[in-house]
């Protein structure tokens, strides 16, 4: 197992993503950040804090659980649901930025797009991820990327965040054993 993104790099990536989002949407007023639980939700909160530090004010931030919309539900035992918290402004007419920790097959994001479609019709949807590891199975790409990490399909990328894991770091390990 080796560390590919230590804590300071994660912080820098989050601040850079915050700047890129602000630049793209010309300010924070029309943006709603929706993190995909568990770690995507914490990243969304951190990006929101970074945006607020830059702009002042409060950017809308929430969470979006994709469990009920996944296409692989039938292949595994049912999972407990995670919270979906949509900010009071809703998503109608907003620029929604989905936030997740790792972009891999793209299937989670497809499920998130379906879940979002049930809630309303945002003006636009974009995607921010901390790590893009490749191997897409669907025509989905990230708009804001912390770091591109080329991997083999069997390698295991693990994002650790202080809020959940007690430490900030992204590691890569050989596949086979988990």
């Amino acid at each position: 197992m080796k560390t590919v993104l230590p804590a300071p790099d994660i912080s820098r990536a989050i601040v850079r993503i915050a700047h890129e989002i602000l630049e793209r949407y010309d300010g924070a007023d029309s943006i709603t950040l929706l993190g995909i639980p568990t770690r995507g939700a914490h990243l969304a909160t951190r990006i929101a804090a970074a945006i607020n530090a830059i702009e002042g004010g409060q950017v809308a931030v929430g969470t979006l659980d994709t469990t009920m919309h996944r296409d692989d539900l039938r292949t595994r035992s049912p999972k407990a649901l995670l919270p979906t918290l949509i900010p009071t402004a809703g998503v109608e007419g907003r620029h929604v930025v989905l936030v997740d920790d790792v972009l891999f097959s793209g299937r989670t994001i497809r499920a998130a797009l379906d879940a979002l479609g049930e809630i309303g019709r945002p003006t636009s949807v974009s995607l921010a991820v901390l790590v893009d590891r490749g191997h897409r199975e669907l025509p989905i790409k990230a708009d804001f990327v912390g770091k591109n990490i080329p991997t083999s399909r069997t390698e295991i990328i693990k994002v650790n965040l202080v809020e959940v894991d007690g430490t900030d770091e992204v590691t890569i390990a050989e596949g086979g054993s988990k």
Partner: protein
Amino acid sequence: MKHLLSINDLSRDEAILILDTAAELARISDGPMKKLPTLRGRTIVNLFAEDSTRTRISFEAAAKRLSADVINFSAKGSSLSKGESLKDTAQTLQAMGADAVVIRHPASGAPFRLADNQWMSGAVINAGDGTHEHPSQALLDAYTIRKHLGKGAKDLAGLRVAIVGDILHSRVARSNVLLLTKLGAHVTLVAPPTLLPFGVDSWPVTISYDLDSVIPQVDAIMMLRIQQERMHEIFFPSAREYSRYFGLNRDRVNALNPNAIIMHPGPMNRGLEITADAADSARSVIVEQVSNGVSVRMAILYLLLGGAPIEGGIN
């Protein structure tokens, strides 16, 4: 967990998972997402060999909100009333590709018979069998109690619940005793001795014959319906006497704890086990129990049918 036949099928953690899932489903279906695609293409049969309003429409609403296809069939108007056996009915459902059967039956144990034989491969959900069990009702009752009185706790530790009335014929009482005690609540049964089942002294409950002494000590009081359709002999001298000693009236409502809630699984005999002003008082959560029932049944259907069609635990 492949079937839901009895509360005994559930571990404490599984019961809490159902309640947590129901809470999350309630939040998203009250708010942004009315309908979820999770059970699209799955067929759920409501097999009701006994009358029901709440449970049947509750399971139907739950299945439809999860996008499942629902086939309702009741004893009246089906071959059950021509004397078709449970086995033949089950094989018919299997041939039609039912992924789950929600069964209500007047015979205790009918859902077990359906699940234990190889008549059909789908999940079996007990929606009330005779005087035996009604697990989804107990789960929605526990959900309602936890929501009002749980103060954020996962279980019901330390809460005191009284179940009052026709315990003898009540599958709701049996399932509730099992579930509420599993979740750490203390249950007191209040009934005339004639309406307590044989062997009740071995249950993990306190028994009382005096409603007035129990009332000030409980956090939730659950009134049960006097089941006249199952009463083939005389269990109490008169309806008036029963309601005087064991009915919930205005004076008893006023003697409850300030935060105590009033529950009833329905349908109510207003004026017999509960007066209209008690049923409609601000303490009453009877109507809310019905809406909670939909969320709890969505959770049950999701956890039984949402995943891979294999046997094994839920994680």
